[in-house]
């Protein structure tokens, strides 16, 4: 199979025995070997495990067993437990931990569906990052221009899929860590509703915001993997017990019948961003605008809770090994440890009020459209950027459009938009009410069908 082959194509070919899982995995491992050094996507490649698993899948298919994700190679952000690897979570400190004794729940579910784990992927330190840079492992690089950021913190998962090393990867999203890299690297990404997919066996960051989800190069691929990962798991205390709600069969309904509006005001962005949003609105034939109330307050509250919960998680490490962190991370965490509890409690109360306001909005609208990032991928090492005519620190502002959304756990499908003449994409968020991943994905699919959203393998990485 080629670098451009997606989840659905591979699963069909392996199931029909036109291809073998072994062949697919060997080709993927070859691409990783040839390209990973310049991409910085994988931190651990598990060739032996993958080949063994592929051989097993092929044998079972020959005996008549059917898998929805037969032979699909995938890899996971290195905060997922992968048996035999220390779960480093992008850090220097955690790579000294003993190897994980079992795979994370979602790795198990994907493999139970016939997919094959190839290894672990680079990420921003302890997921407190929007850039994809990493002081210990080097930056993950944007396959569309290697001098540019992937975005973070799920930088490796985005780099690996955009370069066609694998058709599917898993990341996590606390404040935007799936949506920002999907925007910068031109991928479809799904941040599910908080409490939808099991986080069992993943290293946390901000437990009250953390979710996990997939990256892929088509909406169908995203939906197929998402469907395979749904289901209750007692290993994640935040998981909500509700029936599986498969979405892959609903995608072709597109945006028909959905009430869609473009977020204005806070989500307006600069001219470049507005141009993207205009193209999206035109493609969907959307004229309605909506103002998300108190979005800036929501971002501020998310920012404060992140600082405090992150600091509480890492306090012992900050005491014992402060110099073994990326200084930018440790300084943020130290400050987070010093915040007054009353601020955090106010933020948590505001979260309730804001949630009620947005749920009321979803009584009238099914999907809100907003940009995923305030700019296209910056250059690696860039420290500031101009937002609204003012030069500001880059890193915290990359999440300005994602933070007010994950703050209340809404599901979001990110779709990559390429405008004529642009060398880099910019993502749009299709935001739905809790548990309506299907609405978000249907809008992403509509954008894909119209050709407005697309996620090609980066030039230079696509097979001839």
């Amino acid at each position, binding site marked *: 199979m080629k670098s451009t082959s997606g989840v659905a194509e591979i699963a069909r070919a392996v199931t029909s025995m036109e291809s073998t899982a072994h062949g697919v995995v060997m080709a993927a491992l070859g691409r990783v070997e040839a390209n990973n050094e310049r991409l910085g996507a994988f931190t651990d490649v598990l060739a032996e495990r993958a080949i063994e698993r592929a051989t097993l899948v092929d044998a079972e298919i020959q005996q008549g067993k059917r898998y929805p994700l037969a032979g699909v190679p995938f890899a996971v952000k290195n905060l997922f437990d992968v048996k035999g690897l220390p779960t480093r979570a992008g850090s220097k400190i955690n790579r000294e931990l003993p190897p994980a004794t079992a795979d994370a729940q979602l790795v198990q579910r994907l493999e139970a569906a016939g997919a094959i784990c190839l290894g672990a992927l680079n990420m921003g330190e302890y997921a407190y990052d929007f850039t994809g840079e990493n002081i210990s492992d080097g930056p993950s690089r944007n396959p569309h221009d290697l001098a540019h950021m992937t975005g973070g913190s799920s930088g490796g998962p985005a780099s690996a899929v955009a370069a066609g090393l694998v058709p599917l990867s898993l990341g996590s999203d606390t404040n935007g860590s799936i949506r920002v890299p999907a925007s910068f690297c031109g991928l479809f990404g799904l941040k599910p509703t908080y409490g939808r997919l099991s986080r069992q066996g993943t290293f946390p960051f901000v437990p*009250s915001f953390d979710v996990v989800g997939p990256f892929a190069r088509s909406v169908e691929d995203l939906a197929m993997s998402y469907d395979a990962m749904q289901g209750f798991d007692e290993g994640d205390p935040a998981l909500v017990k509700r029936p599986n709600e498969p979405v892959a069969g609903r995608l072709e309904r597109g945006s028909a019948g959905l009430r869609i509006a473009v977020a*204005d*005001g806070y989500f*307006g*962005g600069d001219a470049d961003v507005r141009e993207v949003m205009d193209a999206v609105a035109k493609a969907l034939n959307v004229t309605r605008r909506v103002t998300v109330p108190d979005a800036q*307050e929501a971002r501020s*509250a998310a920012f404060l809770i992140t600082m405090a919960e992150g600091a509480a998680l890492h306090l012992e490490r900050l005491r014992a090994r*402060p110099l073994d962190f990326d*200084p930018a991370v440790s300084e943020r965490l130290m400050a987070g440890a010093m915040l007054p509890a009353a601020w955090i409690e106010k933020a948590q109360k505001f*979260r309730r009020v804001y949630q009620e306001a947005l749920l009321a909005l979803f009584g009238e609208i099914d999907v809100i459209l907003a940009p995923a990032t305030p700019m296209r991928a910056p250059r690696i090492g860039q420290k500031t950027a101009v937002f609204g005519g003012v030069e500001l620190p880059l890193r915290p502002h990359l999440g300005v459009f994602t933070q007010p959304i994950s703050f209340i756990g809404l599901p979001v499908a990110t779709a990559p938009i390429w405008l004529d003449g642009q060398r880099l994409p910019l993502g749009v968020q299709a935001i739905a009410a809790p548990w309506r991943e299907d609405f978000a994905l249907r809008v992403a699919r509509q954008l894909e069908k119209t050709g407005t959203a697309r996620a090609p393998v980066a030039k230079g990485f696509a097979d001839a």
Partner: protein
Amino acid sequence: MREAAPSTQCRGCDCLLVEAGYGGYFSTKGNSGLARMAVKLPDFDQWIDAMAPVLGLNVTAEQRAGVKANLKTAAKMAALLDKAKVGDEIEPAPVFRA
């Protein structure tokens, strides 16, 4: 290009105006009062000196500027949030269920 938000300096004292100067992003209806909102920022060195021993943290000279910058950002955000109306009866988002 302007320096970062000079317009946010309060006239005649060392207050900062919260989050103004971010241009189109934040000039929304809900935030229209911001340009008039001033925050008296505390002495961040004192803050660090008081809290670091409580937490058992050693903030080195190299780390101090970064910690201060982050506290300043947090203080501005908290000041913005402080203005939000949240009733006594509102339950905080994470509610423990026995």
